[in-house]
């Protein structure tokens, strides 16, 4: 919401000299109306003056430029070159002088144009960041000047190059030399023609000596359109040029005043609970209380002398009272559409809207002033004079004021006559009842519509308007009457029409008065303050609340207030949030800290990082196609994912039931970025459908890596280290050939005891290929809940060995298929009391080893706790181990 401070001063005395923009923004922000930005409009334009053209000469070195001497209020005239042909001696024009700034950011300095000095620039509307709505008279019409004619085909000119004044061009159109030009009104010039007659024209680009095309029948000088000519045939006869001012101004006046830019604009961010602050009066009320000033409000007075009564002319029926709690209407006869006065245009423009014409401007002005959106219907287009507020019927549609045909659905509330919709309620009017130049009778609508309904309709139609964005927050139904009266008052003030007596006011949704009990002790208890009751009462009364004893009467526009905590906020806002003390009231202290689960999760992160893995964060949602990408079996139950019904896109449309695609996506991205290696981890959730529609959201520890140092055993080492750190007890690994995501020969399931922890391995080359990666990718997926459940308790100290250990290496030959892990387990469990460790250190096939066999070497570590181990004991142990290997695995010593 943009608030011009000049307009604010109508309601609250708060001149800029007393409170500058920064102080204003600070005070308003901390009282609850957050200021986004303030702008000093006068700083956007500098040194642009009103100038009077004293003389115009042809530029000596250019056939399309003019050299003007301009009176800008100084002692000597200023010389400015211009390419515009629409100026005349005596015209008042905006002149940007040396070292000036234009609103579009352009800086003007003196310079030479084709050798002639120019001390500034004459400005068009566009260069002043304005348009014809700001200066309605400034539309430029251009005559076709025959002296500027350039035939498209030089060999076949439509007009003879030798044409003379008096020659016929076609029909009743003759060539005529202009002998005099005199301004005779707003955009009207009287031209004397060498034919011996005079004519009045709105064309601005005519000067003495020009040869024009004159239609003797219509008594008019022809434009390009009249001659059916193309622009390129008359390159300098364009409908653009310098703004010729018809304002109450004199040479030397500052243009910023004429443009209404001697103002400061404050832009507020208004929270959705305060639609009452989306207007001047609401903001003025907040301003007045913030600065302790008086709020001056005006009661609209309507003369209504047009005769007749609206009750006899129109009928209003609300068919859906839930969506339209109130509909108020007044009638205006003998409407005269015209531009609205400068003061109104200026306020509308500085508040961020565009002036259009008096009627439209009045509705917008009232909306900006009261916060109540209004609509004006051409009443002659309302069939049978009846307004029906109802939802659209199946198949109905409307062409809205922006010229778009919009199909309507039965959820959309519309304003209809007896036959068809004439407006989408609270959103936009229809073209079929639009105010046009010859509109004579206008029905002003000032209504209240259900907020969510307007919002949904506006969203569905894809057109959020100034009106709908107010309605959607829920407006005060009490506000409609005053707004429509204000509109009618302005109609009378502007002479835009005659107001008919009477008001139609259908009000099915009147709300009871909201009351809240004033409980100062509760307010203080909530705030931690000691504010006295008198202060509270004053704040509330200043804000427009009523007080009857201890009963607070909440004003109708404050639908957000219904509870003592709301009263506490009102009090706190103006007592000052920053005046509330800061102190700890104590209470019962709580221990705080990480839970054991959180500690384990943190520890896993620490271990991963100590092993060199970087942490990643991935999206919880994926594309269903990712299941194919990781080659998940078509009947895998994990394909049954929670599905987002309104996803942003396919790629983020289902909740992942496996974390693998997320890791693969990040590995792929790093690979594609040509990072030569990556080692990553994430502790992330997966989402499993539950019968109640919600999800189990277990966490998975996801590891992933690629790079020159990676192989299966590096990955396995990470997992083993992690499990060892958590003290889970020794894991065992079984070959997993059936996980389609992983390499069938390089994948293992991980168990601790009977509990499956997860899976690890090299990603299947085809899976990798699905991601466009031709490198070896390694991943592990570990269940966090299992890791947590299996975590060890606090370690108990074991005495360090006092006697040296003895090692013996042995090598055996066995069948290739025997898992070494099984052999190690057997050795350790059957090796006897002295065997402390068994580490396989070489597996060999090939030369000297029979086909289908392999040689496995183990290093055995043996030690006695109470003495230095004797050779006999060591030999005994080795024998035992060899026996086990022979018995269990048919492995014989090499």
């Amino acid at each position, binding site marked *: 919401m943009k608030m011009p401070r000049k307009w604010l001063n109508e309601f609250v005395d708060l001149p800029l000299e007393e409170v500058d923009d920064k102080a204003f923004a600070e005070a308003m922000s901390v009282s609850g109306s957050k200021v986004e930005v303030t702008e000093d409009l006068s700083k956007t334009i500098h040194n642009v003056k009103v100038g009077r053209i004293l003389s115009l000469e042809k530029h000596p070195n250019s056939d399309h430029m003019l050299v003007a001497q301009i009176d800008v209020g100084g002692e000597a005239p200023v010389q400015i070159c211009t390419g515009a042909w629409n100026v005349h001696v005596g015209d008042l024009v905006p002149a940007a002088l040396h070292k000036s700034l234009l609103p579009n950011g352009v800086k003007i300095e003196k310079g030479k144009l084709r050798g002639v000095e120019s001390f500034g620039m004459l400005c068009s509307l566009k260069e002043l960041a304005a348009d014809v709505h700001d200066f309605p008279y400034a539309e430029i019409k251009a005559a076709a000047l025959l002296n500027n004619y350039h035939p498209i085909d030089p060999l076949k000119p439509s007009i003879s190059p030798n044409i003379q004044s008096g020659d016929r061009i076609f029909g009743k159109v003759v060539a005529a030399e202009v002998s005099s030009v005199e301004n005779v009104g707003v955009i009207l010039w009287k031209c004397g023609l060498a034919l011996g007659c005079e004519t009045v024209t709105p064309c601005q680009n005519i000067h003495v000596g020009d040869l024009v095309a004159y239609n003797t029948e219509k008594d008019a000088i022809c434009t390009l359109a009249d001659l059916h000519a193309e622009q390129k045939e008359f390159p300098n006869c364009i409908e653009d040029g310098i703004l010729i001012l018809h304002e109450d101004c004199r040479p030397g006046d500052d243009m910023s005043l004429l443009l209404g830019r001697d103002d400061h604009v404050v832009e507020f961010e208004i929270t959705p609970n305060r639609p009452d602050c989306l207007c001047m009066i609401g903001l003025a009320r907040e301003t007045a209380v913030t600065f302790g000033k008086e709020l001056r409000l005006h009661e609209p007075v309507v003369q209504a002398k047009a005769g007749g009564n609206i009750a006899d002319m129109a009928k209003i029926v609300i068919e859906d009272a839930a969506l339209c709690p109130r509909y108020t209407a007044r009638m205006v006869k003998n409407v005269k559409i015209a531009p609205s006065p400068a003061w109104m245009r200026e306020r509308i423009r500085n508040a961020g809207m565009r002036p259009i014409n008096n009627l439209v401007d009045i509705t917008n002005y009232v909306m900006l002033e009261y916060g109540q959106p209004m609509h004006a219907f051409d009443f002659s287009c309302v069939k049978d004079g009846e307004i029906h507020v109802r939802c659209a019927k199946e198949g109905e549609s409307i062409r809205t004021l922006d010229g778009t045909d919009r199909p309507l659905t039965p959820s959309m509330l519309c304003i209809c006559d007896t036959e068809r919709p004439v407006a989408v309620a609270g959103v936009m009017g229809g073209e079929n009842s639009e105010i046009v130049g010859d509109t004579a009778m206008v029905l002003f609508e000032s209504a209240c519509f259900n907020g969510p309904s307007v919002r949904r309709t506006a969203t569905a139609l894809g057109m959020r308007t100034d009106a709908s964005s107010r309605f959607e927050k829920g407006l005060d139904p009490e506000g409609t009457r005053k707004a429509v009266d204000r509109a009618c008052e302005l109609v009378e003030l502007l002479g835009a029409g005659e107001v008919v007596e009477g008001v139609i006011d259908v009000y099915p949704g009147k709300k009871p008065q909201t009351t809240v009990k004033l409980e100062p002790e509760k307010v203080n208890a*909530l705030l931690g303050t000691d504010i006295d009751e008198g202060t509270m009462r004053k704040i509330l009364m200043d804000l427009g609340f009523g007080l009857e004893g201890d009963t607070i009467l909440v004003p109708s526009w404050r639908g957000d207030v219904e509870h003592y905590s709301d009263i506490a906020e009102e009090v706190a806002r103006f007592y000052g949030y920053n005046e509330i003390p800061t102190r700890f009231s104590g209470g019962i202290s709580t221990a705080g800290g990480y839970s054991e689960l959180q500690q384990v999760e943190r520890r896993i992160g620490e271990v991963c990082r100590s092993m060199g893995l970087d942490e990643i964060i991935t999206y919880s949602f994926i594309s269903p196609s990712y299941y194919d990408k990781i080659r998940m079996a078509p009947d895998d139950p994990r394909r049954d994912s929670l599905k987002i019904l309104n996803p942003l896109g396919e790629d983020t449309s289902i909740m992942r039931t496996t974390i693998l695609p997320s890791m693969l996506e990040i590995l792929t991205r790093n690979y594609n970025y040509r990072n030569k290696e990556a080692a990553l981890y994430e502790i992330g959730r997966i989402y499993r459908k539950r019968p109640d529609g919600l999800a189990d959201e277990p966490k998975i520890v996801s590891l992933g890596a690629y790079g020159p140092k990676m192989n299966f055993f590096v990955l396995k080492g990470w997992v083993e280290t992690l499990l060892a750190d958590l003290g889970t007890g020794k894991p065992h690994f079984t070959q997993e050939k059936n996980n389609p995501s992983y390499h069938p020969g390089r994948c293992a399931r991980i168990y601790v005891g009977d509990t499956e922890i997860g899976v690890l391995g090299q990603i299947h080359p085809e899976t990798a290929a699905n991601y466009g990666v031709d490198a070896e990718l390694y991943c592990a997926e570990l269940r966090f809940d299992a890791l947590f459940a299996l975590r060890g308790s606090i370690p108990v100290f074991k005495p360090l060995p006092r006697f040296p250990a003895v090692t013996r290496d042995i090598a055996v030959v066995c069948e290739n298929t025997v898992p070494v892990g099984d052999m190690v387990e057997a050795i350790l469990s059957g090796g006897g009391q002295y065997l402390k460790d068994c580490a396989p250190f070489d597996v060999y096939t090939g030369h000297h080893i029979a086909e289908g066999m392999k040689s496995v070497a183990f290093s055995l570590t043996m030690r006695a706790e109470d003495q230095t181990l004797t050779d006999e004991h060591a030999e005994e142990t080795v024998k035992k181990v060899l026996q086990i290997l022979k018995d269990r695995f048919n492995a014989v010593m090499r």
Partner: protein
Amino acid sequence: MKEMMQALREASIKAILNADDAESLENLRVKYLGKKGELTAILRQMGKLSAEERPVMGQLANQLRSEIENAIDQRRNELSAAMLEKKLERETLDVTLPGEKPHMGHKHPMYNVLDQIKDIFIGMGFEIVDGPEVELADYNFTKLNIDEGHPSREWTDTFYFTEDSRILLRTQTSPMQIHAMETRELPIRIIAPGRVYRKDEVDATHSPMFHQIEGMVIDKGVTMADLKATLNLVVEKIYGKGTVTRFRPHHFPFTEPSCELDIQCHKCGGKGCSTCKGEGWIEVLGAGMVHPKVLAGCGIDPDVYSGWAFGMGLERLAMGEYKITDLRLIFENDVRFLEQF
């Protein structure tokens, strides 16, 4: 004999001083002091001496022996010191060459910031709680005093799993307030960080998934003064001592009164610059007193208990802390990004 010893002394000391390695030194020791050495040869002639002379000469000979031994030892020490010096000289390294770095893993920058915040709150007696992301609309909206018509419930803003808008992806961590009030014993001091989801297209400042931290205190006699004291302390821990704060009224359906906490722009000191978009202040978090309706809805008597709550966005905090300019980097997980922190 005395003269002979004197001659031997001079000759041997000279030779020893000239020895330039350990081997020649050993040869000299054998030559002078060995069983067949020159000193022994002289001593053999002791028999020819008188009984008076013999002890005198013996003493002189012993003295000479120890002189020669000392000289050898001294020379040996000199030589080994020189050798060591040469060895060290040879071993000299270019210390400007780079070290061999162990590969360290890195915590994600956003979780660095999150852990910092967790630690701050834990120090103040808070616990950390976690909850579901697939959530009931009841918890995400209704019980938080967000009524049926509220725009945030629209399908254009929130991801839904059921046609009846009953189950959704939580749009905020605030449902954790409800879960905590319904399941925990009073008093409650919790923070609840986690993932939240909104229907925003990905760009430099938006992501359909992002993180929030919710915090809540429920106890007897809790006031807005507590809220201010706690959050001021937190902000000081995050942004440094002396950070100027400002509490500004705001609106959240589930707190009343509600506020936003701004810190004075550290770059311009409040004058207004590009960092603070000219406002002089930077918005940090939203907070407020838990709405009595919300308390009552969770079975907590608002006449006995009160509470305050806050919520803040983690991404923006991390981006501010590390001057990260594009939110997409956070979820891209490029190791060149991750390893900067």
